[in-house]
């Protein structure tokens, strides 16, 4: 079975988010890019499955929709252990566009499983995985926190309120994974880093697909007003502030 992992290239979680002066696009100057954390866990789980010879996993491919600037992130995935990588050469514009690209790649490659993260840590759309399954007309299972094989059959677990749910699903399918799918992301080992440059990274042109949405503007949360200190015995002033400034009384 071949596994395809959809990798979203996202800014490091400690990045200080800035927008262009007209607030319509994200300013990526000085940003450190990483593999979307959920996608990284999906990759880790796929590697674990592949390394256990009793599982029927033959190949792990990673794919991203993005510009050449996303390639270091793909090579990182190769260093962690993926066998090959595909970059769909397009700027990702909206979830439908991205999902269409990924569905095209998935349909092309005889993949038994398509793994997606539950959301991307930048745009938090939580949309791509479901859309891929819809476009391909294959099943999808969301919020997957466990992925194993039982006698060649896939068994997925989902966390539900107060417990767990086990699901079996015929391949090919889309699994949208969440935390728990793997314990900790793997650190790229030196050997993997050295091997990554020799592994195939294929660039494919974007398929025709529509974007349904377009961002109009971004807005930062209002900065918190500085707190005011009122002397403990100056009750009058406190009441005054609460009434006239905070307007809560």
């Amino acid at each position, binding site marked *: 079975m071949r596994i395809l992992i959809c990798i979203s290239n996202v800014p490091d979680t400690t990045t200080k988010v800035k927008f262009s002066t007209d607030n319509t696009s994200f300013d990526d100057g000085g940003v450190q890019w990483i593999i979307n954390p959920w996608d990284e866990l999906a990759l880790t789980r796929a590697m674990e499955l592949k390394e256990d010879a009793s599982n029927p996993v033959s190949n792990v491919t990673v794919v991203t929709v993005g510009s050449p600037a996303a390639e270091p992130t793909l090579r*990182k995935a190769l260093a962690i252990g993926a066998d090959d990588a595909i970059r769909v050469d397009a700027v990702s514009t909206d979830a439908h566009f991205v999902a269409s690209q990924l569905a095209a790649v998935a349909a092309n490659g005889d993949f038994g499983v398509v793994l997606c993260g539950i959301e991307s840590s930048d745009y938090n759309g939580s949309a791509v995985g479901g859309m891929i399954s819809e476009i391909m007309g294959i099943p999808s299972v969301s919020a997957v926190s466990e992925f194993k094989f039982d006698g060649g059959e896939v068994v997925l677990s989902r966390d539900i309120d107060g417990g767990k749910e086990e699901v079996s699903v015929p391949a090919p399918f889309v699994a949208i994974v969440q935390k728990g799918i793997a314990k900790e992301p793997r*650190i*790229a*080992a*030196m*050997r993997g*880093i050295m091997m*990554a*440059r020799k592994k195939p990274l294929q660039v494919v042109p974007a398929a025709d697909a529509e974007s349904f949405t377009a961002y109009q503007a971004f807005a930062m949360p209002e900065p918190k007003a500085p707190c*005011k200190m009122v002397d403990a015995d100056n009750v009058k002033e406190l009441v005054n502030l609460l009434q006239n400034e905070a307007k809560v009384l």
Partner: protein
Amino acid sequence: MEEKKLITGGEFLVKETSPDDIFIPEELDEEQRMIGESCKDFLETEVFPVVDRIDAQEEGLMRSLLEKSGELGLLGITIPEEYDGFGQNFITAMYSSEVLGAGYSYAVAYSCHTGIGTLPILYYGNEEQRAKYVSKLATGELIGAYCLTEPGAGSDANSGTTKAVLSEDGKHYIVNGAKMWITNAGFADVFTVFAKIDNDRVLSAFILERDYEGITFNPEEKKLGIKGSSTRQVFFNDVKVPVENMLGKRGEGFRIALNILHMGRIKLGANVIGSAKKAIDQSVQYANERKQFNCLISQFGAIKHKLAEQVIQTFATECSVYRASKALDNAITHSVANGDDKGRDTMEAFNQFAVEAAAMKVFGSEALDYVVDEGVQIHGGMGYSAEMFIDKGYRDSRINRIFEGTNEINRLLLVDSVLKKGAKKVLPVMELAEKAFEEVKAMNGIPAPAEGWIEEKDQYVANQKKVVLMLLKAASEKFNRTLVTEQEILSNISDCIIQVYVAESVVLRLKKMEAMKGEEACKIYRDMADVFVYDAAARIAKFARDATYSFAYGEVRDLLEKGINNFTWVAGVNVKEARRRIADQLIDENKYCF
């Protein structure tokens, strides 16, 4: 072509360096960055969560961390592939040392193992020794330690009394003696031990294995900092060491020890950058949270000054360390290509760069001490509390001025190397000094500043070098053979040399960065260079005057004084505003971002 371009150690004092010949961190390639990320990930997932347990020296923990590093290949980054390493160049080694340098005690254990614990065998071992030990050291199956220091032989390492005597059957050396302050001693398997054979006046080196009979250990030393690193006294009681475990030739030990230390010193320069960046992150994050007088303390000018100066010192260290690394990388490649013993040829390259290595060791360790000290200060009372990490950084920093040769020893060694290279005519020190004296004689006031920001900085640095050269010449002529006893003067000159090297490195980095990114994108770096060069000029002037007034009289004194006045002059800089801009960027990003 290659030949002509090769920079030699100490050459910076007598020649201009081209920005093309230096390396700056902006040039790290994708693979190097990925290696750096793995090092960082390792610290974040494996080391930082257990720092307290490391400091409590939990049984087996440090060793298991080193083994895990080995599994990831981090112990073999520069080890050749034939010994299960990854054959990366020296710059990559330095970069990974920088990143891992933030790892408190783990960083010390790591550096000890990969540096002094492994490299003597890699570089000086014969084929059998390398085959037997190096692969296992590179993968972490074996852990290494280095035993030079003795209770009675610290700075004067060659005075050690550990003895090795050939057994009657000629099959073993019987080793007796005691070593002190041995890092990783608690769990290391392989020890490079320096001892004197019979009545030799110089050391030889041996490879000892932990389970050889007769090796015993004292309990762990109780230390001021790096509490999690293992440091013990090691005793050798009639230890039978197979003759084939002698490392290098008889009597070659001291040379091995020194060359390994040259390498260790420059690596220490890389280590401190990682620690400093971490301490800066902690400082700015605290300053961005803590309010006093109804105001974040990061908004106070006095705090901004500290934050900015932490950044400047760290940035300056980084400029110099990577500059030296590239020169070394080239020298290693050249030396290996032209020699027949890869190990010894590599070490010869390190020997060549003794001046730069000592400069980086001294400047880097003192820069870090500044950074962590102000880090504590920015934290106020919380800085003095063991609750925050900054106190650990503060305590852990202090060792860097002591080991790998104390900073005093390194300052003296630095000038000594320059003088020797001058005497051997490797560097035209005296000739250029003579010229500088002539120039001063003919001078009429401060030289007109050159046009242009870069050109002005070039001029300052070139002039500061003249002060150094004049001092070297005047002091040598005055004291001749007794100059070695004038340590105060030698240390002054050494400090001038260090400041010049670092100032020039900052300017070179600026040149290269601006060529890469354009002037506009490098404005904040110009601020750093402005402040650093301005400060360096004042420091050089002070050190140079201290030296001058300590020995010079009459015409020489007048000329030196005039030279110092004219050659260390720099245009005024609004350091307050420059530092504020640097601090503001740091405060805005809330982490080291330069």
